[in-house]
């Protein structure tokens, strides 16, 4: 059996032939498309290390069969920066020390990008903790992660205001 799907990954269209419908988006990204920034932690939807944005929504790529995504837009950690300019969430994670070992960080950052886009948490730390609860950090850098999301939320809101003015 062969399936062909088209995905737009980090802005670039890709035609992909799948030999097997059981391939997850996570394995496709890491093993086939040379995008290993998305991490495999638990591979069962409990840790969030594999979080990517699909059609504007954050999802666990380990639970998403690639075959189901024909026509979808996918953004991974590799697609956030603009050239050498980091995304505001990436900058805030560095400034606020939102990590230690770094393994969960791509998932944390993609999840934070999704959370800010959802627009429901604002800079309320409790809402941020709830919204980020799908991303486990075994180093327990949660304090820095919460500060980073608050900081990025404010900065992105200001930038938007600046654009509007």
């Amino acid at each position, binding site marked *: *059996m062969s*399936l062909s799907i088209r995905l737009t990954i980090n802005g670039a269209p890709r035609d992909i032939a799948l030999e097997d*419908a*059981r391939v*997850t988006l996570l394995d496709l990204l890491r093993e086939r498309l040379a995008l290993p920034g998305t991490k495999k932690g638990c591979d*069962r*939807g*409990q840790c*969030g290390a594999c*979080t990517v944005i699909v059609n504007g*929504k*954050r*999802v*666990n790529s380990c*639970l*998403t*069969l690639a*075959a*189901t995504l024909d026509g979808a837009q996918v953004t991974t950690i590799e697609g956030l920066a603009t050239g050498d300019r980091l995304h505001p969430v990436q900058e805030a994670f560095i400034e606020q020390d939102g990590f230690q070992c770094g393994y969960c960080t791509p998932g944390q950052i993609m*999840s934070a990008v*999704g*959370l800010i886009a*959802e627009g*429901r948490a604002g800079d309320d730390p409790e809402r941020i*903790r*709830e*919204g980020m*609860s*799908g*991303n486990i950090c075994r180093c327990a850098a949660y304090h820095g992660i919460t500060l980073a999301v608050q900081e990025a939320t404010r900065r992105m809101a200001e930038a938007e205001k600046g654009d509007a003015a």
Partner: protein
Amino acid sequence: MSYLTPKSTEEALALLGQAGADVLAGGTDFFPSRGTRPQTRSILDLGQIDSLRGIEKTARGWRIGAMTTWSQIQRADLPPAFDALKRAAREVGSVQIQNRGTIAGNLCNASPAADGVPPLLALNAEVEIGSPGATRRVALSDFVTGVRRVALSPGELVLAVHVPSLPDDAVSHFLKLGSRRYLVISIAMTAAVLELDGPRIATARVAVGACSPVAQRLPGLEAALVGLTAAEVAALPVVPETHLAPLAPIADVRGSAAYRMRAVADLCRRTVIAAMTGGTTDE
């Protein structure tokens, strides 16, 4: 094995009849529920059937399409009787899960700890089941028959969940007890849907999950609540054990049976009071 992507429910039912495939909805439990067993049967992906998504008002209530996600339910414009369901939607795994996981997937997986089941039981929900050329409706309480068992025959598909109309001023609440605040499998959870007569309870429906193989309504407690004010519910010394008789909690890594019974008694009371005193949904 093949991968099937029907574009309509008719096509899906025809394919299901021929192929005997495993149905894929949101997919959040598709691989995890298999453990180490490989997927060898064909996969029937419902993701391209638009008519299975979304919530609509009907003449007799509300119809929630089978593929409606928990995120969509949280954001839907629904009366306060659905606050319990919306709160439960916020507790289904993480936002990443809520963005993919569906209402029918939650029901069909039939986990004793499925967050969606107690609020839907308290809403008297019915499950709409399709087969080639026919549909039937089953009360949710008859649909989930055991741990990971539902009353679906081969070739049948859940198409929607129906919630009968309630008075506009009906209120509801949902509480989940876990070992930490977020991203937990329940130790116990309770949902209450109440119709009020001024400050007093006119009718009560209370359902408990994770304390029996299938979530249960508590008719004894529901009857005892009628006529009470929130203050009177708060002043009740204990929830009598006879009211909790439908429950049969197990002891597992999350809690002992005795702990679950103690916890759920108080959880019921807190849920009813919160429903009456307007626990807000923050949304």
